[in-house]
């Protein structure tokens, strides 16, 4: 099919890059935003704008809340669907979980209940969840959307397409194609070191787009490669679900043996027994971590077989000073508080896996590295966007001559995927500030605003892209840049008006989650205005390209 290895790699890079590039834009952009997902949550839910807290007292604060919690409506609805529409009957909570990080002011609580009337699955469960202010125990309204951690973050790994996990599979294929695009990019781009520092914005759009594409691709190569690879490893259980299919009997056998070796019960005993002081267990866990030279705070705490003689409490450390996912889990007997099992240091293979997944999931505390991650993610976006632009620039003259409209549709889709995506994001933040505070289902409305704004951007881009069919620039890019600038100024302004937290106040207090967001929004507005200006010059043909010849590489690609 291809005359040479290089041509086969070029074809693969061009066409797979084009098709999956749209998905990859979402992964890289919302992945970059997810680095600061919890800070975005603070901006979106003003009542959570206070300092991060450590885990509060389980015995006095958390236990009463756990005991009052109920399964969520969504979980009950899903269970009902599994048992043919009947109302699920459930026990009182069989399991508790609490999760926090060094960046979270609020605490997430989870509960698990056995479903007793599912004839097909005796182990069926329903789940409950809530978020509390750990200083007072007050629960947040459950229809307030954590725009960072509950919307942008899952968007980047599942596209919010949960049905049959299709979104996860699309992202997985896109990640694989990213790896292949990086490898093939190196094969195609022969002068990697000679052209490492080359960027010529005054040349024709095709050449300068390719320069920037090569620059952001090469400079970010280790970053893009490792993020795509580690993302795939994190979800390996979805892409190759061996443990629940062919290898299920082997997996079950080993899991039971493992729990037995740790002294942890797979099933409850059926004998009621009270829970000992969990606060004392937490104190003991911290003492043991400190003794091992790894002192820290609790990141995750779970109670299994609540109220039963076989109950056990597992305490895990919040990882902050290492890249690797550190758990240092310690398991306690629920009824007495004695230590049953301390997780040993990980084996070599587990250590490598923990390091690679830790690299991606970023539980560590390192503000510079987080910002560098954001830059890497945005460089990835620039690489994909310039890839689209190069594709269109290279073909639009040809298509204009032959009357084919392909370049126009690719350009419209590219506008939607680049500026359109940013419009949707900031429109959602503006909506977050404009919607009435007491609106029921507020979170769902914010999501609708996001998708509607993106659809509007698509329609606008499609409508305005006709000039591409005459080999000119679509004005949609410039117009959407202006839209972004307007939204990026409106958002911090509305934040000030609706919450009183303006930049001078937040900078003065050093409250970075909100100050950082407002500054980032304003900086984005400046960049959008500069971009709009440059685009206007190009559209009017004032910025004459300095050479019309493109070199062999630009013609070859």
């Amino acid at each position, binding site marked *: *099919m*291809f*005359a*040479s*290895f290089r*041509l*086969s*790699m*070029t*074809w*693969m890079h061009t066409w*797979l890059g084009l098709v999956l590039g749209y998905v990859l834009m979402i992964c890289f952009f919302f992945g970059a935003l997810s680095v600061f997902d919890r800070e975005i949550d603070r901006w979106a839910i003003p009542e959570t704008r206070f300092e991060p807290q450590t885990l509060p007292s389980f015995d006095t604060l958390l236990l009463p809340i756990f005991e009052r919690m109920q399964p969520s409506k969504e979980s009950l609805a899903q269970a009902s669907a599994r048992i043919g529409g009947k109302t699920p009957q459930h026990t009182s909570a069989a399991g508790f979980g609490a999760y926090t990080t060094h960046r979270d002011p609020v605490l997430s609580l989870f509960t698990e209940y056995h479903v007793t009337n599912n004839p097909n699955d005796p182990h069926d469960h329903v789940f409950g969840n809530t978020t509390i202010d750990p200083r007072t125990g007050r629960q947040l309204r459950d229809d307030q959307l954590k725009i960072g951690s509950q919307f942008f973050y899952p968007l980047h790994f599942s596209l919010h397409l949960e049905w049959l996990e299709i979104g996860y599979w699309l992202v997985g*294929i896109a990640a*694989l194609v990213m*790896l*292949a695009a990086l*490898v*093939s990019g190196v094969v195609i781009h022969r002068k990697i070191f000679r052209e490492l520092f080359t960027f010529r914005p005054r040349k024709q759009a095709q050449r300068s787009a390719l320069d920037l594409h090569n620059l952001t691709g090469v400079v970010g190569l280790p970053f893009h490669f490792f993020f795509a*690879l580690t993302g*795939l*490893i994190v979800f*390996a*259980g979805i*892409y*190759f679900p*061996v*443990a629940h299919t*062919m*290898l299920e*009997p*082997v*997996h079950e*056998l*080993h899991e039971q043996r*493992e729990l037995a070796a740790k002294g942890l019960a797979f099933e409850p005993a059926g004998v009621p027994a009270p829970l000992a002081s969990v606060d004392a267990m937490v104190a003991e866990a911290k003492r043991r971590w400190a003794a091992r030279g790894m002192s820290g705070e609790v990141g995750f705490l779970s109670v299994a077989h609540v109220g039963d003689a076989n109950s056990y409490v597992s305490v895990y450390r919040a990882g902050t000073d290492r890249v690797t996912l550190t758990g240092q889990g310690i398991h306690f007997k629920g009824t007495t508080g004695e230590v049953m099992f301390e997780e040993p240091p990980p*084996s070599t*293979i*587990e250590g*490598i*896996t923990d390091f*690679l997944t830790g690299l991606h999931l970023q539980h560590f505390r390192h503000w510079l590295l987080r910002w560098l991650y954001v830059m890497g993610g945005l460089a990835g976006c620039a690489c994909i966007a310039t890839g689209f632009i190069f594709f269109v620039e290279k073909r639009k003259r040809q298509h204009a001559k032959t009357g084919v409209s392909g370049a126009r549709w690719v350009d419209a889709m590219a506008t939607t995927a680049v500026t359109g995506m940013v419009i949707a994001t900031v429109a959602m933040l503006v909506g977050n500030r404009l919607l009435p505070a007491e609106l029921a289902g507020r979170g769902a409305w914010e999501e609708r605003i996001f998708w509607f704004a993106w659809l509007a951007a698509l329609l606008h881009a499609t409508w305005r892209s006709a000039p591409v069919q005459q080999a000119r620039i679509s004005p949609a890019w410039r117009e959407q840049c202006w839209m972004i600038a307007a939204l990026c100024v409106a958002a911090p302004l509305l934040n000030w008006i609706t919450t009183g937290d303006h930049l001078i106040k937040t900078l003065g207090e050093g409250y970075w989650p909100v100050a950082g967001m407002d500054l980032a929004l304003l900086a984005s507005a400046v960049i959008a205005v500069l971009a709009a200006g440059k685009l206007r010059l190009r559209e009017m043909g004032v910025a004459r390209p300095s050479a019309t010849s493109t070199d062999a590489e630009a013609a070859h690609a």
Partner: protein
Amino acid sequence: MATTTATPASGTLQVISRVAASLLGSWLFVWGLTVLGISLGVWAGADYRQMESLMYLLAFPVFLVVFCWAYAAVSLKRVWLILAGGGTLMTAAAWLLIPSLAA
């Protein structure tokens, strides 16, 4: 793009077959490798979880290599044979081995 196809129709079919081989063929190949690798490891006495972690680490680099090879290879028939055929063989071998591991 220099191709050796004669007609547009067979060209499209070639493209679809090539892309399918790169995705489906590679997936089947890596599936087979993963289940066979874990099964052989457990059979040789290794811990299940360790073998699963190891194979999951190897799965994606291997996927990347065979994926690119699916495009670089001259004979599409050979790509399907090795990827889908090889994947099926490895899966079958694992399927035969597993019952003795779950005892």
